[in-house]
């Protein structure tokens, strides 16, 4: 095996090589194509971020607070761009994933902490993906005892069977159903001047749960696993320093598109559900927001979207997790390998899927409690990872001349500071009791 091949052992080895060395012709049309080719991983990662947890959180935001909560979207977009761009940049400059860099910069102990926390947190996020699939399928009248094992088996076979890339596109296409929120939001006829005002002028309603909702919204949008996913995708694609500009475009568009959809989801539920005083208790409540465009089929539409968004995340999440863990500990990884070659990778992947599916099905399981634990772990993990990220990106030995500039650094530390402050606030409310 030539060395070049060894180096690019990644989940997607079939990335067309044309992506790697784009011809920089001066023709505007060709340039446009290059930019289009650059869009991809970032967009995918960001869209997969709008999973079951994301959609239910956004829906609840709008239903409970109306348009008053819209202002967090622009703020969150800035955070998301900073984090995703940083993750992409370290990967492009070093050719290594985020977990590899944590290991090489901070050694075994911090890595083990980060990977252990990531593993637990992501397994718990997987619960919510399977719960999302179960909720969606129950709208179709299918029992969770049938849908969840089936979904787990499908996820397992699709990804490890190697046909994940094709299926990924299908799932992505189906989860674009959520773009229907754009149409639904517009058709619901909101008061546009109020919407604009609420989007850009922050306000804090005198509601005790508001802060809590803001925190969980940020938590689902900037999830730890997305940092790993973003950097892995860049390594995977073989982006080098030369293509850093395109990489940035990808990161920014991904963040903006994902948040735009989130913005429309909030807008829709704020317009349809909030005035009627409907708070969301179940998936079918959330689906009611789509009535303006889908009428009686809104439930089906919502369920299809929820199931495919959850399935997409359910595929990507264990993949990203086991990839990151294996990269940190130097185990063979990638779905292209046989079980014998990459046993740790495949075992981890299988274990996450199986444990998540089994736990969701255990009778009397307090899923809500587990979700809280998950939020707690994610909350502790996120600031730690962000600090790791900033320390790595400012390390000259690692990044050479691509370290952060001063303004960017201020922005990054501000992000970390706000996330830490919010996390502490979340933990305090969790312990003192809301």
């Amino acid at each position: 095996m030539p060395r070049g091949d060894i180096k690019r052992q990644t989940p997607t080895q079939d990335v067309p090589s044309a992506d790697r060395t784009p011809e920089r012709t001066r023709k505007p049309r060709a340039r446009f194509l290059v930019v289009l080719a650059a869009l991809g991983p970032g967009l995918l990662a960001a869209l997969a971020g709008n999973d079951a947890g994301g959609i239910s959180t956004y829906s609840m935001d709008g239903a409970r607070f109306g348009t008053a909560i819209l202002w967090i979207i622009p703020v969150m977009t800035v955070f998301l761009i900073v984090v995703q761009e940083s993750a992409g940049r370290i990967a492009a400059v070093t050719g290594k994933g985020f977990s590899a860099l944590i290991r090489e910069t901070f050694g075994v102990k911090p890595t083990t902490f980060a990977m252990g926390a990531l593993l637990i947190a992501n397994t718990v996020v997987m619960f919510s993906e399977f719960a999302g699939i179960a909720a969606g399928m129950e709208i179709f009248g299918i029992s969770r005892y049938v849908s969840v094992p089936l979904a787990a088996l499908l996820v397992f076979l699709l990804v490890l069977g190697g046909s994940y890339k094709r299926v990924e596109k299908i799932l992505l296409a189906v989860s674009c159903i959520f773009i229907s929120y754009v149409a639904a939001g517009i058709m619901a006829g909101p008061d546009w001047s109020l919407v604009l005002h609420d989007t850009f002028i922050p306000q804090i309603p005198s509601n005790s749960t508001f802060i809590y909702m803001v925190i969980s919204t940020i938590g689902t949008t900037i999830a730890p696993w997305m940092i790993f996913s973003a950097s892995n995708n860049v390594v995977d694609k073989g982006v080098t320093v030369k293509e850093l500009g395109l990489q940035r475009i990808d990161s920014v568009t991904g963040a903006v598109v994902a948040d735009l959809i989130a913005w429309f989801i909030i807008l829709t539920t704020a317009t349809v559900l909030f005035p009627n005083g409907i708070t969301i208790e179940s998936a079918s409540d959330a689906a009611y927001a789509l009535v303006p465009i889908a009428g009686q089929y809104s439930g089906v539409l919502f369920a299809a979207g929820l199931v495919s968004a959850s399935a997409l995340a359910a595929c990507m999440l264990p993949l990203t997790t086991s990839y990151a863990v294996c990269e940190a500990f130097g185990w063979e990884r990638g779905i292209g390998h046989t079980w014998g070659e990459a046993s740790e990778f495949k075992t981890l992947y299988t274990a996450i899927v199986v444990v998540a599916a089994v736990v969701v099905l255990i009778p009397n399981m307090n899923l809500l409690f587990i979700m809280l634990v998950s939020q707690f772990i994610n909350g502790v993990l996120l600031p730690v990872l962000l600090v790791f990220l900033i320390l790595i990106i400012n390390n000259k030995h690692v990044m050479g001349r691509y370290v952060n500039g001063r303004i960017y650094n201020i922005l990054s530390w501000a992000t970390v500071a706000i996330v830490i402050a919010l996390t502490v606030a979340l933990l305090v409310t969790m312990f003192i009791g809301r």
Partner: protein
Amino acid sequence: MIYLSQMLGISVVDTAGEKLGTVSDLAISAGEVFPRITSMAFRGPGKTPFMISWRKYVADFDDARINLNVSAADVRFSYLQSDEILVARDLMNKQIVDTQGLKIVRVNDIKLSVSHNQLRLLGAEVGSRGLLRALSPHLENVAVAVGKFFKHPLEERIIAWNYMDLLDRDLSEVKLSVTHRRLHELHPADIADILEQLDPQQRASMFEHLDNSQAAEAISELEDEYQADVLDDLTEGRASQVLAQMDPDDAADIIGDLPYHKAEQLLRLMGVEEEKAIRALLGYQEHTAGGIMTSEFLAVDEGTTVDEVIEQMRALDEDHEPVHYVYTTTPGDTPDAPPHLTGVVSMRRLVLARDDDRLGNLAFHDLLTANPDDDQEDTAETISKYDLLALPVVDEDGGLLGIVTVDDAFDVLEEEHDEDLALAGASRDDDEDNTWMVFFKWFMRREIWFAVWVAVIVFSALTGNLTTWLGAILFMPLVLLVADDVATYAINDLIDDDEAQGSLLRLLARDASVGAVVGLIAVSVCAAAMGILDNANALGDSDPYVVSAIVNSIVPTALTILLTLVAGVLLADFARRRKDKGHVVSNAGMATVTMLCAVVLQILVSSAATAVVGLGA
């Protein structure tokens, strides 16, 4: 041998005992096969980094400190040279290409080989043991013990330095992979040290790069346990050539350890003379003077002149054992018998004597000798006590058979010393003697079922299913013990082909009754607890919850036992197939898996039963 993780952070102390700082890194020069540590970086007070030459300043070191050979004032600091690599900074935690296995792996630790006060970088540890060690050495010990228990020993995975290639872009100019041609620059004893620490595959490929005489010397220097393995890996032609190059006593030692047909094959491939010499030595018992003696010595008739002896010495092979003494003899009683030993002439006497002196006149006649059946340790001690360079071995008639040289005597003393230590209980494998580990092993071997039971109770309590599964849990010891029996029986009967200890039925009857008793005790404790609670609540009629749980569990439990038997047989069959494929099957592992199956079966069966009863009602 030692690991980098153990070196980092230890104190650097000068001759006056003053602490200069703590070790932060070691530097090697990249061009060598197994590179020596050339300099050491340490952090002084206030985290100031310093770098000094290892060769010049390090006197010795142990687990806790590095002693310098000068006082702090006389140390000259140096800088990192362009061909040097900092091991902790540039290698630890980094990805490397295992050029032999063609895989990317991550360096979890660096293995160093110690000879005197010199350190060589042997290779990178890329296995899980390095990871565990980095977390905590205790964790590594526990993992190793558990691995041993389940018969899947946790091996080290070392990638030899000459098979690795750095991936890092910054260091790509530093050429790591060096050709094996430099290997011959090392001393055979150093080569042997290194060979012992490599895995067989790497060892074999290193031998391809040694010529026969280097290979012979290196093999002689290896510990006994590796010699036969190494020889086994060589082709027969090569092996016999290498053996012929060795001193006959070393060769005989190794051949003595080989299987009979293999030994014969190798001997037949050799030259007549070497074969004869080795065969002569093979006749003696191991661990006796005869077993360690060599037939390469210089013996002449008493009438020989000094001139003639020197002439004979000139004619000796280059690889002949060093001649420290010339022995004088008179012809034996029969032509076949060995010549009688009469005296010994030391090299010094020989050199100082006149050319025409007769050896018989120069010789020292009051001789210390050994018998071929003498214990090797006594022989070695004689050599050590009288400061001899060699001791002649003679038969009952005084015929000279061979000599035991001082280097072989040292090997014997070292070996016996280790054995004595082991007998005294100071085993080198210290985790064997850890009382906690012994207890753990005993417990695990005997009472896995209890651990599984407790785990199930904890799990069901955590998931809030304790009351739902109460009946199943109360009868679980019964099912678990049955599962254990099935596993044990299957292992003994199907896999080891041993005579089973009694029939399965008797075994089952015995342990099932134990399980039933434990279950009943659990039931009564549970019922008593419920009763107390009920009384405390002052409810009139007590809730027959426990009773109904028990009654409802009897049939499912019986069903589960039957299913467990079936599952046990299937598992045993699976295990046997694994064993046929060459995998190791562990008794404990098999028992654990069978028990887990039993647990799942029981919970499934009793849930199903509850559902059916619920529907019926």
